[in-house]
């Protein structure tokens, strides 16, 4: 009975392109996950009606746990009441955020250029 028809990869949440969180279901909302990594997000009601945590989504999609009451543009989300549906890139600063160090492979193959760039940024 545990068989699932499809496998869903845990979404990766990035801040302005820098991967920061693997959203593996340990946090009940995107906001909690962001806070656990010490991302600076302003929040108040944490229930989707004050709109304080409104965040711009650069790419990716979220799904809502409760329908937000706050006004949202097409490119905005309310992290307090949503979870990432796909990999997500948010317009938030990763200043002071704990960034997962990328594992360095010592193989003959040189790593993909994009990866090297990100590792240096971190």
């Amino acid at each position: 009975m545990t068989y699932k028809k499809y496998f869903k990869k845990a979404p990766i949440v990035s801040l302005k392109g820098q991967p920061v969180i693997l959203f593996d279901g340990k946090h009940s909302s995107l906001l909690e996950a962001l806070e656990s990594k010490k991302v600076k997000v302003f929040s108040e009601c944490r229930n989707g009606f004050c709109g304080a945590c409104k965040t711009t989504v650069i790419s990716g999609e979220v799904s809502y746990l409760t329908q937000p009451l706050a006004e949202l543009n097409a490119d905005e989300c309310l992290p307090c009441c949503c979870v990432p549906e796909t990999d997500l890139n948010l317009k938030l600063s990763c200043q002071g955020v704990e960034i997962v160090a990328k594992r360095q492979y010592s193989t003959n193959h040189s790593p993909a250029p994009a990866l090297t760039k990100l590792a240096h940024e971190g």
Partner: protein
Amino acid sequence: MAYSTFCQTPNDSTKEPMFFGQSVNVAHYDQQKYEVFEKLIEKQLSFFWRPEEVDVSRDKIDFGGLPEHEKHIFISNLKYQTLLDSIQGRSPNVAFLPLVSLPELETWIETWSFSETIHSRSYTHIIRNIVNNPSVVFDDIVENDHILKRAGDIARYYDDLIKLTQVHNLHGSGTHEINGEKITVNLRILKKSLYLCMMSVNALEAIRFYVSFACSFAFAERRLMEGNAKIIRLIARDEALHLNSTQHILSLMQGGKDDPEMAEIAIECQQEAYDLFVKAAEQEKEWAKYLFKDGSMIGLNEQILCQYVEFITNQRMKSVHLPQPYEELSNPLPWMKNWLESDAVQVAPQEVEVSSYLVGQIDSSVDGDEFLDFDL
């Protein structure tokens, strides 16, 4: 557009703008132009509470033990909150109801204002408990210069709109001489007055209230005056909703889909709206100075409160699409979020965590997918 309590011209209310259309006749909610107001009404109703549910008896002991300068902070803050809710308990009804043309928005305004009257009743509940003669506290509200100064600015926009509406209703567009005073009124002037009034209400709900909440919660952070903080927490939860509604209304006005002339007015009034917010923020900073004139309290002083005013002003102005006047900084009162989180609010003794429940509500949504792996 003479106001009628029941306009007999049949109309489709979904084709009316939010304000200045045909007055609402049948209060029906089956078809809605802006569903968000219906959702706000439902949410507000699910938040219903009464001040008597909160036990504030311990506060009397706490209050007695406070040093004089902290008593001043507490009482002054409470006076200010009383003033704000006295205004909000009536003004949205008096000012906006004659102008509104959507049933769901009309009902939202009434629901909103009603919840403010509960807030006013809570202040009496709190004050009655901590002082022997509550009228000493209440009487000072209309005598205290520091409170009156701000009251004038808050009431001004409402009063202006109410006066213009009355003149327009009686005499129509044009310049009229009333009691020796020349008043020019037309629909555009009225719309402008409404837009600025809505901005002023937003500033009130978004900045002024939150400054007072910070003071109330600062006591409770030290485990003092906790009964009061419980009530203020319920008030703050309601205010977040009211704030959301004025942000929605302002956005709809600015968007221009609702009423294209309103969008023009929004652009025209941007500077005035900006100045109004900055003035409110500066007044709150002056108030902080008055609150802490005899000394600060642990966890809160004039400087931190002023930083909070600046921080919150930036946030709120961003929400109503205005430029931010202050330097970007991080939240100087991070503990505020523990008090503002709505699900942490305890509403009834039997209900510890979930704050917004609907009586008798059952979840009847069953998705067709639930039966996919079901065979006989």
